[in-house]
């Protein structure tokens, strides 16, 4: 039995992404199996999601970097209710908001969520990419 998060998500029921000039490096990164974020060449601060200029200082010297995937759970919600039919066979599932070690904050599903164990703010996770249904999408798994 597969334990991929997206195996039980009906991805074809979600509107597909619309990559643009700003977000294409994000989708290309996932296709290579990595999560990318941006860092400012001027003030050195990092951020997500992709934007044309640094949201911290306004500089246009943004450079994409690859994340190690390591991060800490900042917060989470466990969704029991089916808000969208794409997730009808997935509930209950946990969405974790992760502060990557490199700085940026991202929202990703937690693979292997176990209601008996729950989710702990401050716990360490590692992000990787699932290749399912023709898409490449980030998920988090608990770090031992």
């Amino acid at each position: 039995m597969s334990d991929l998060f997206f195996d039980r998500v009906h991805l074809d029921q979600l509107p597909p992404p619309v990559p643009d000039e700003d977000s294409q490096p994000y989708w290309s990164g996932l296709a290579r199996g990595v999560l990318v974020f941006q860092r400012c060449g001027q003030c050195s601060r990092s951020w997500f999601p992709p934007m044309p200029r640094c949201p911290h200082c306004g500089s246009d010297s943004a450079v994409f970097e690859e994340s190690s995937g390591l991060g800490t759970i900042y917060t989470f919600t466990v969704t029991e209710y089916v808000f969208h039919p794409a997730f009808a066979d997935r509930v209950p599932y946990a969405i974790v908001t992760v502060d990557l070690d490199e700085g940026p904050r991202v929202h990703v599903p937690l693979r292997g969520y176990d209601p008996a164990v729950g989710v702990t703010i401050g716990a360490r996770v590692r992000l990787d990419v699932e290749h399912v249904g023709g898409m490449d999408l980030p998920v988090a798994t608990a770090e031992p």
Partner: protein
Amino acid sequence: MTGAAAGPWGDVLISGVGMTSFAHNADRSVLSLALQACRAAVADAGLEACDIDGIVNYSLYGDSVPSVAVAGGLATGELNYVMEFNLGGQAPAFMVMHAAMAISNGLADHVLVYRALKGRSGNRIGRHLDAGGGTDFRRFAGLTSYPQVIGSWIARYLHETASTDEDLGALVLAQREYAVRNPRALRRTQLTLDQYLAEPYITSPLRRHDCALEVDGAAAIVVSRASSAVELGRPRVGLRGGVWSSRHTDLDYGGSYLWPDYSECFAVNAAPRLWKQTGLRPSDIDVAEIYDCFSGLALMNLEGFGFCGRGEAGDFIRSGATRIDGRLPVNTHGGLLAEGYLHGMNTVIEGILQARGDAGANQVSDVERVLVCSGGRVAGSVIVLEANG
């Protein structure tokens, strides 16, 4: 105090309000709802539609009707000022400020503000998922609906402040107490804490009673130049001040990637400016109508504006402070949680009714100043209404 309020909009009054009833499935168009509320507000101000010379409104994802249609349907005179905003729950208090600005700057005399939507039977904004833009980065995480975004925020609030589900429940119960006495409210059954806690999470730590009840309906407000307002023999309501605040925003309002601390909201940025602008302190406020699209955001707003200490909102509510005879009655209509989610415009109207003594069974005695806030995360607006006797 007599005459109009001091401050930036001393020459402005809130002259009229109007609302439709709230429904799960209105049997009329959004435009028809808008016109019903607008006509009621104009009549309440003692005016005729031809007196209206300005319109300010907001919509989200095209869920409302434009000012041209409303002006046409009302048969207003020539409009000297219009402004249409693409905003959400941050907007209602700001709409009143904006109307006041148009008047203070001499562009109009009677500005109509409205919000109309079929938020229940039509376009449910909390579930809106445009492809492209910011939602591309959270849609596939399963973050498809607004309660999930808020659930994440409130989980962090509980964690940071050692608050509990019981604190969220305290707010829900306190507001329900008002709703039971409010004939406009849709959730009018008193809840017990046990009943609240027995409900399952829909998305933790939110239960259904923590979420505003989406409705179909419309609400409208007329803002007038004080010297042009009709004397109606009731307390006049002035606008003591108001501020907008948004910070650390990114591609859409659902991501909040850049807002550093999910345990506090825009109120921490807006409050210092509001108190400085108005020369008031939290203790000068008699009633607070606080944005509560979700229970926990109202707790953050209460703390952010300084009505109680950080992490103390639950205790503040349990002390009885927010009851009708408490030192700061809060959300005297039952809030968006219980009256209905007219996107916060109904909350502004409740504040106006309190200031002029027309709030029915939930009227607080001796109201001089009402704080109304709109919004509960990275962006919002807040006004102080003043009863001028």
